[in-house]
């Protein structure tokens, strides 16, 4: 199971990087979103996808799932959510300011 998910993470990262390398601002933002999702999945996989009980230690608990990766993912999701929202607002502002589609272009001679 871990191998399968790791492969999925690889595919998602590839998609994210592909989108990041495009010139369209919206695609780039979606690229960062997909990239961060891929990484959340990686975080989950790295903690081990065990099937076990909730991590409440009783005398009979034999196997339990590590809760820490889930806490980490929750934090990371909130952060990437905020950053994506900020980026979207910023690109909208750039669009308003420049009057053309928000493209990542520098000076002509760059």
């Amino acid at each position: 199971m871990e191998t399968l998910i790791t492969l999925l993470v690889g595919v998602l990262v590839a998609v994210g990087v592909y989108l990041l390398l495009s010139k369209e601002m919206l695609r780039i933002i979606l690229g960062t979103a997909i990239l961060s999702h891929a990484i959340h999945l990686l975080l989950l996989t790295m903690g081990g996808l065990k099937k076990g009980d909730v991590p409440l230690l009783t005398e009979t608990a034999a196997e339990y799932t590590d809760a820490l990766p889930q806490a980490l993912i929750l934090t990371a999701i909130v952060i990437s959510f905020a950053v994506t929202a900020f980026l979207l607002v910023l690109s909208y502002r750039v669009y308003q300011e420049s009057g053309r589609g928000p493209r990542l272009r520098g000076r002509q001679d760059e």
Partner: protein
Amino acid sequence: MNMINLLLFPIIIPFFFAMILMFFKEQVVVQRVLTLIGLALSLVASFWLIATVKTEGIQTVTLGSWPAPFGITMVSDMFSALLVTTTIIITIFVVIYSFSSIGVERERFFYYPAILFMITGINGAFTTGDIFNMFVFFEVLLIASYLLIVLGGEKRQLRESIKYILVNVISSAIFVIAVAYLYSIIGTLNMADISVKIAEINQPGIISVIAILFLIVFGIKGAIFPLYFWLPNSYAAPPIPILALFGALLTKVGVYAITRTYTLFFVHDIGFTHQFLMVLALLTIIAGCIGALAYFDLKQIIIYNIIIAVGVILFGVAQMNTSGLEGAVYYLLHDMLIKGALFVLIGIIIYATGTSNLREMGGLIKTHATLGWTYLIAAFGLAGIPPLSGFIGKVLITKGAFEADHVIGSIIILASSLVVLLSVIRIFIYAFWGPQKNELPVRDQRTYRQMMFPAIMLVLITVAYGVGAEWLMPYMTDAANVLADPSIYINAVLKE
């Protein structure tokens, strides 16, 4: 051990005041006063913290009273206490400088809250003892910095801020990847515990790979070769006070993180990891020197000097002996102070001349003598002319390098001092000597004096830092001892 939350004060006080300031969006004077009060309180707390760490050793707080490897631990050793204090000192003076230079428009759009949130993140990243918590504090300071870099919404700022944000989003992604890999192998996030576990398995190859991943992450934030590409343009976009804060503080967080991870975690394969770090540090210095000489723009020259300094500090860290680390700690603090001072000073030069192009300046010494001499002292301090503060740091770093038999590296460091001196003296020669080229714009003398106050104070502090090195050395030694011997840090965190 008596548990007091002293080490949390420099993090919580700015955070608290930032929240209060949100309620006073339109009252600029209230905002200014409250910001200064908040920073002054944090400064008192951080001095108290240094005194406590000096007498009682490393301070730790485990949040929620979970025992050490399980909960989030905040750790304040001498290194982080000194960094926290320096951060607050610089911020106070840059905030005073902002009063007369940033403009009411920006002040009304959450300029001061953003600064205080950024200080929260920076101090948190310096203090935390948990690698994932460090990621969270990085994000806190980054999001505040996103606001600061785009505040004002000039076209150039908008363009550069998108690049800045994207670079940082990607580096944060790599940060989480590195933490995930580390967790899958080590199974812990507490930094002291990670150090113990890595020592137990004697750092196999995969840990070295993770070490390089961490170097990439912090290298992007701290601007080492070849990952500094985003820095010169992004930093030049926002106004001078923001540039001063970024230049003095943000890259140093990356440098701190590299120093911490490379002295606490990855210390068992120095032949590979630290050699790699050293080569990159030297390349960083060379690339920075080329940039510093190539430009005729005031901002760009000093910005490339940030990159040189990052290289010098990391070169000291890569030596992994007491002299090198002591030098790195000393030079890191020196560089934060002097960069703050220099950015404020060039801000005043730009204000006085109305341009940042050196070719259009000249003859300022006739009208702005104080500015000229203050700048000259700061420039000498940066280049490391004794007894100013840059000298002592570089002496210790080169001493460490000679002890570790890295002769060529030391020669590059010493040669880079000459380039640094040349690049900053060029500003002095072009801006202050010679005939006046253009008519100076008419400026309010009172504003000029208000701007000079923080600049002179910062330069005086750097001079005191250099001249008073004798008294400060015990603190630097304490900081370097913890870095040189991870067991001190581990014992302080995991002893109960």
